[in-house]
């Protein structure tokens, strides 16, 4: 069992009349337990344009074992530096939102169906993303 933590700090001195200072830390556990997640996949890649590409999901060649009762976690960051560039992020067929250059996201992920992949769609060339998938298990594809 591993111990992995994810800490968020949200802060602003001028968004509200009073300063915003919010901090949250979670230990990444397997679903319904206090046993730490012990699988990890950390990648960096340039996203091709013209289509929606899966980055995490059961349909990948080394896909996640299906199951809604999981507590996978996914971090994705758009490493581009041009503020006008973004990637659309999909869960299944739903475009949940845009990650502009410099943005990141962190979500829990269940894969209750084979279609419940996470995918990205780059609106311009040369956009590099990094993503770290902390998971409960994957299945290697056969050669």
């Amino acid at each position, binding site marked *: 069992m*591993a*111990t*992995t*933590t*994810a*800490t*968020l*700090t*949200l*802060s*602003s001195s*001028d*968004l*509200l009349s009073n300063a*915003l200072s*919010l901090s949250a830390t*979670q*230990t990444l*556990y397997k*679903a*319904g337990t*206090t046993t*730490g997640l*012990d699988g*990890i996949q*950390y990648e960096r890649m340039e996203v091709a344009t013209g289509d929606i590409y899966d980055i995490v999901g059961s349909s990948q060649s080394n896909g996640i074992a299906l199951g*809604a009762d*999981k*507590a*996978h*976690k996914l*971090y994705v*960051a758009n490493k581009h530096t041009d*503020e*006008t560039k*973004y990637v*659309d*992020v999909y*869960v*299944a*067929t*739903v*475009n*949940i*939102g*845009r*990650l*502009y250059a410099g*943005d*990141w*996201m*962190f*979500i*829990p*992920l*269940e894969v*209750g169906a084979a279609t*419940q992949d996470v995918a990205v769609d780059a609106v311009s060339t040369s956009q590099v993303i990094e993503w*770290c998938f*902390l998971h409960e298990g994957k299945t290697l594809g056969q050669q």
Partner: protein
Amino acid sequence: MATTTATITLASSDIADNALSVSNTMTLTTAGTTTGITETTGLARIKMESTSLTDLITVANVTGFTAAKSAKVYIKNTGTDSAKFGIIGIGDSGGTPTNIGRLYGGDWMLFPWDGNSGEDITIDMSDATATIIEYMVFFE
């Protein structure tokens, strides 16, 4: 213009042979610019006491919200029970939302939100034990 930052730190000394240490700070800006986001719902806390699928954040109730921009949403399950969770989804509680994942006690998430019509943020609690859910939307 306001300056709001969100920093994530992922850390582990034993998930692999080498330590994991990921740290990233983003500044919350309006879509396609370097201008800081100036609108927020503020931090909201809501007590969930039902297992009925419900809308946690409704697009129409976020006054001034413009869809398909660079909104960000923070949600936290402030519970302490690692076996109880809320399933967060995108869609409408009157239909069949697309589930993203489960927020167990103590878990948080931060993600971009397109918030087009019908793309509310839903929650479905695993049991009816009173649980406080926190959320905050940053939008334009």
